[in-house]
């Protein structure tokens, strides 16, 4: 006897503790505290440089604070245990609170029949009352037909010579909050998936070359993509009359089992997606400062005819009209009396029996040699166009299996917020009583939120009813 009562009291105790824990996790205080905690610690994260170089951090903060911040993971706080724990608490909080609350809301939302009582509406501040001519019967019919437009499901009550109609709308909008909370869960789950199973890396591909492996951003992993990615060409376009970049474009080809399976030109904002990997245009660089090919244009001074020829460094070209042989010697920065004139092509013109003439053509000042009257002495004048250098494109490579959870969360969040903020559960009541000559009509309504808005609504609706009774 003694023993068993002990047992039940222990069990009781256990239940109480569980109950308290449950209540703790269902409570709003917990969510507000956690939310504010996240807000405040996130401020720290924007002040302390994240994922920076530790040597630099050490110098910046000194040994004591460096150690202190390091211990608390403040240099990479968004990935720290305690930051994640806060989100975990939020998740538990949302789940527990929703279960707790839903069990009681459920009955309100899904009960078969609505019950209304006149006394609940009678003394509301927002009520609108007016008088209309005509008999009770007439008025009742007019109002009923009007009221039916609002809702098919109306309830009629006749007590003490008073006729009352009731209806309610938007009962299910009470579920909006749960949609919102569910959306937060989706986002947290998606974020966690991305953090644990996602990949982020960077790779450079020279034009014409291909890669199969990518180094992760934190340099801890080399990921084998399982396919080959080739860059055929990289192009940079500038805004007209400006040095500002307008567009970066890389022509990429996916190769699998030696077959080209996908071709796409990517630009910023328009990545290539393949097998869960995304390739974003992120940077570019010149591989060498020397051009691959350029077009040399020769103009004969005598006839005015232009001859053009694609040339590489080291190439020789026999210019027509017997103007001689042109060779491209080098491509380099050109210093003229100590001033840099930028990149220039250096070449030599040889004609039979004449001394070779060296020419320099600075790209930004094509007239340079002409002005010095060097080429003019000869019979031809040369300039260069379409200088094509070798680039490598810099691609950011990501894969995030959690992103669809997050996006689903976004959609639910928007839908849920819309329901929560702009829709409400309204109960509406219209009562009619008569003093023989005239009828007194009262329009009344309540909502589970936005009382002010409901008041406006009642005023407007009463106007409509009044019109209908005329």
């Amino acid at each position, binding site marked *: 006897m003694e023993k068993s009562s002990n047992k039940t009291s222990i069990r009781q105790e256990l239940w109480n503790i569980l109950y308290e824990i449950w209540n703790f996790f269902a409570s*709003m205080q917990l*969510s*507000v505290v956690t*939310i*504010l905690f*996240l*807000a405040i610690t*996130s*401020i720290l*994260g*924007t*002040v302390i*440089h*994240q994922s920076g170089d530790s040597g630099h951090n050490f110098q910046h903060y000194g040994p004591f604070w460096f150690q202190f911040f390091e211990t608390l993971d403040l240099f990479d706080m*968004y990935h720290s245990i305690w930051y994640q724990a806060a989100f975990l608490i939020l998740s538990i909080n949302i789940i527990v609170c929703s279960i707790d609350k839903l069990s009681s809301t459920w009955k309100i939302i899904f009960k078969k029949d609505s019950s209304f009582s006149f006394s609940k509406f009678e003394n509301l501040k927002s009520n609108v009352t007016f008088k209309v001519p005509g008999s009770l019967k007439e008025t009742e019919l007019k109002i009923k037909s009007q009221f039916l437009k609002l809702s098919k499901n109306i309830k009629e009550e006749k007590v003490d010579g008073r006729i009352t109609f009731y209806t309610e709308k938007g009962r299910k909008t009470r579920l909006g909050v749960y949609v919102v909370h569910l959306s937060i869960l989706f986002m947290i789950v998606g*974020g966690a998936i991305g953090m644990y199973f996602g990949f*982020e890396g960077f790779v450079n591909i020279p034009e014409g070359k291909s890669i199969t492996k990518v180094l992760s951003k934190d340099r801890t992993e080399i990921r084998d993509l399982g396919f080959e990615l080739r860059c055929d060409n990289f192009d940079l376009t500038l*805004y*007209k009359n*400006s040095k*500002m*970049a*307008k*567009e*970066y474009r890389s022509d990429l080809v996916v190769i699998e089992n030696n077959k080209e399976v996908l071709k796409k030109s990517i*630009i*910023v*904002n*328009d*990545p290539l997606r393949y097998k869960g990997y*995304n390739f*974003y245009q*992120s940077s570019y660089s010149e591989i060498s400062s020397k051009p691959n090919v350029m077009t040399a244009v020769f103009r004969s001074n005598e006839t005015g005819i232009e001859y053009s020829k694609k040339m590489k460094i080291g190439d020789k070209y026999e210019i027509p009209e017997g103007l001689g042989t042109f060779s491209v010697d080098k491509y380099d920065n050109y210093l003229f009396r100590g001033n840099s004139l930028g990149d220039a092509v250096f070449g030599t013109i040889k004609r039979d029996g004449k001394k070779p003439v060296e020419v320099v053509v600075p790209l930004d000042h094509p007239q340079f040699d002409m002005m010095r009257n060097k080429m003019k002495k000869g019979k031809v004048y040369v300039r260069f166009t379409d200088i094509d250098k070798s680039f490598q494109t810099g691609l*950011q*490579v*990501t894969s*995030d299996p959690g*992103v669809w959870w*997050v*996006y689903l969360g*976004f959609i639910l*969040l*928007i839908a849920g*917020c*819309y329901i929560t*903020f702009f829709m409400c559960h309204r109960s509406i009541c219209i009562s009619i009583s008569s003093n023989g000559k005239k009828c007194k009509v009262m329009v009344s309504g309540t909502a589970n*939120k*936005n*009382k*002010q*808005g409901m008041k*406006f609504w009642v005023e407007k609706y009463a106007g409509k009813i009044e019109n209908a009774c005329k």
Partner: protein
Amino acid sequence: MSSSLVLSIVIYVYGFAFIFYTSSAIFSKKEITKVGTILSYIALSGNILGFALRWIESYDKGYGHIPLSNLYESLVFFALVIAILYLYLEYRHKKYIISIICSLFCLICMLYASFQTADAIRPLLPALKSNWLTIHVLTCFLGYSGFAVAFALSVLLIMKNALPEKIVKFTEAEIDDLTHQMVSFGFIFLTLGIITGAVWANSAWGSYWTWDPKENWSLITWFVYLAFLHLRFMKGWHGRRLAIVSIIGFLAVMFTYFGVNYLPGLHSYGN
């Protein structure tokens, strides 16, 4: 007519609207209020016209983007939405105290914008060329404007007892309710702003959230208003206590808007 000319005239019109509203409160004359209202509508029209002209001008220059790409342009838009919101409240409630504060906001925004040196229309960086940019910035600023009006209401609520009854006219409950409406408006647009920003970042840089200071601060702001909503919904907070939360929220908005430029990051809007 150029957008900058129109917009500099608009500064004065907002200024006069503010002066008329204020004097109507002091002398409690209906007619003066009317002038304030008419001036506000003129200022708003000018503001919209200036915005549209600037948009057209950017096409003429060959760049063609919505004028929301720097601090100057965003301030112009900010003033525009605040004006719409306060004129809506004024129309709906026939009370003018909010218009006084908000026309002052518009004036400050436009003045501050006119101090910006970088008001030339410039081409967009490749990363900014996206329809998401338009939606993202648009929704964010709609949100900020809602919060600005909520801030005005909260300040009013806190100062209410110090002001004469006949100037304020609103009851505390009404101000409280309007604050809530404006916060809701702001919250839903801030939410949309953060979401579109995330989707855009994902399509441009390959990750929807990079913990960049601007993103963080918008999240912090979101958290503050989230706390506001929960305190109201669940704890039944209202009045002065809740007004303080709304004010803190607006400070966070301001920091997200201006302060973040002093921190390193991707959204270098003001410089």
